[in-house]
């Protein structure tokens, strides 16, 4: 178990400028699944309501996969199952070679998975830099004593992690705001800080739950640019929930459509747009 774990998460030993191939799970894992994430017939219910019914989904390395559908279709539930906040009633979730019925959320980061939340889940009392840094906490080796005694190893680690924070902040144009308390930033910037926190440990899979909700058109375009740039740079895979169909069509490689917890379509943006089932259940004839 331990050895598989170490192989499966290069994030524990960050490699700079990883190429797409390196970001993939190694050798036998890739042969076994061919996907960074695979859901197999995942079902989930709350008190008699079916939130997800036998949903299957494969996400390949370097792919941006959007999940769309009306409110209550099960999109957020899907992300919450993948990140272990909800436990599936049936089905299986695989990250590379690791299989789970219930993903342990506290191990998510170690597994190379990062996420953002629909309603910002930042730490408002901390600065932007500290918020981003918190995304690296799981890699930390030195403890309280190391810090109190200013041991060289602790200092080196601190310096390295600060470097990682600065790098991601630069990529997301957050450098000027690094010392600001997150709670005092405007909403659009907070969303960006949350993306930075998710990206700082260079995950293999990024789960974005409405990352552009509440943004202006310009901010949305900028955010979409950041997501694409992160994918292009490190070959990570993205699951994206977003209501703005324009953004979704422009950004994703594949789109899955959920309706009442059932996957009703899965394909390229053009396929999905023309899918009669999607038009009937979601888009409406007029919009198509």
């Amino acid at each position, binding site marked *: 178990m331990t050895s598989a774990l170490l192989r499966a998460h290069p994030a524990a030993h960050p490699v700079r400028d990883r190429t797409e191939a390196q970001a993939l799970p190694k050798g036998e894992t890739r042969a076994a699944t061919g996907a960074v994430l695979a859901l197999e017939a995942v079902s989930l219910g709350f008190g008699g309501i079916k939130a997800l019914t036998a949903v299957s989904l494969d996400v390949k390395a370097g792919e941006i996969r959007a999940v769309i559908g009306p409110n209550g279709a099960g999109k957020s539930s899907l992300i919450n199952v993948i990140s272990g906040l909800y436990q599936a009633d049936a089905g299986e979730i695989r990250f590379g070679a690791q299989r789970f019925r219930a993903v342990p*959320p506290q191990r998510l980061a170690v597994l190379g998975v990062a996420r953002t939340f629909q309603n910002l889940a930042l730490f408002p009392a901390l600065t932007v830099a500290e918020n981003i840094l918190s995304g690296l906490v799981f890699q930390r080796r030195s403890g309280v004593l190391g810090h109190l005694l200013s041991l060289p190893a602790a200092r080196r680690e601190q310096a390295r992690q600060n470097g990682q924070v600065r790098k991601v902040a630069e990529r997301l144009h957050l450098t000027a705001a690094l010392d600001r308390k997150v709670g005092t930033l405007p909403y659009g910037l907070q969303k960006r800080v949350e993306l930075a926190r998710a990206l700082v440990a260079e995950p293999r899979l990024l789960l974005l739950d409405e990352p552009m909700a509440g943004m202006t058109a310009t901010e949305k375009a900028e955010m979409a640019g950041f997501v694409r740039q992160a994918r292009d740079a490190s070959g990570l895979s993205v699951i994206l929930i977003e209501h703005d169909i324009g953004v979704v069509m422009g950004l994703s490689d594949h789109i899955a459509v959920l309706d009442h917890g059932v996957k009703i379509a899965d394909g390229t943006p053009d396929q999905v747009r023309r899918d009669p089932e999607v038009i009937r259940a979601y888009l409406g004839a007029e919009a198509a």
Partner: protein
Amino acid sequence: MSLVTEFSATPLPPRENRLLAALPLVVILAVAYLAVPLLANEYLIEAILLPFLALSLAGLGLNLLTGYAGQVSLGSAAFMAVGAFAAFNFDLRLGLPLPASMLLAAVAAAAIGLVFGLPSLRLRGFYLAVSTLAAQFFVQWALNKFGWFSNGSASGIIAAPAIGIAGLPLSGPVGRYLFALVTVTAITFLLHRIVNGPQGVNLIAVRDNETAARVIGVPVLRTKLFAFALSSAIIGIAGVIWAFAYLRTVEPAGFNLDRSFQILFIVIIGGLATIRGAFLGAGLIVVFPLVLSRLTGLFFDGVADPGTIELLERIALGTVIILFLIAEPSGLSAILSRLKRRLAAPRAG
């Protein structure tokens, strides 16, 4: 982009300003270490400064738990009691030097804090707060019930030994004051380092959004238990100061629920998640009753009996608490920050 450029205009404080900012601290330390021992009278030390130091330390401990880690505790006095009685027994039974007894007392308080912190892994908010009352009542009961803790004395009263370090007697008011002061200074410094370091990020992450903290890999359980253990240890040391340096004769009933609430008031009135808040809050809590009894003495002396005056004081305390909460939700620390800004404003403009 445009959003960010707005901030680059906000200048960071340059290094010289930081030195200037440290000036008040230097002055306070100088007064505390030099002026007070030389100039202060016995009343000031015994009635104000010693309880102030002990309660400040207890406030610091609770603030770590409640302010930084977001776990509310209503049982702080129990850990003061654990600290006091543990140090008493380490001294009595092992004959250890004072610093060693104190350290072991802190360890004992931390251990018991860990046990009573376990519910925090499952419970939140008021459910957790109420469950910490278990510590309050259990510890008080155990200390009363088992004579061993107080070496068999009636109703659990213990008399602290005369204190001294390395043969240096510290039993006079100034000696006990310096002992308390050094202890409080050292712990304050350590705590400052901890909450402003990586561990502080973990604590605040758990407080502000536990789910997010868990998902990004912050060790939530370990962080909570760390907060409970360290907080209890600090409050335990506060108990040692309370028993050894301040009162010198204590009984379990002195660490009752009212004391726990008093420590909670200190933290809330002083300001959550600030180091100085504990000191400001403790100052108010220690000085307020003295001022109040002077005032009631002035107006009601001879008019009302002591029982009535006590009731009036209770009403006044309750009123002040409510007024404080209404006037300044972020506590005295926030008032101080505002004052500083106002003082700095004319210079900047």
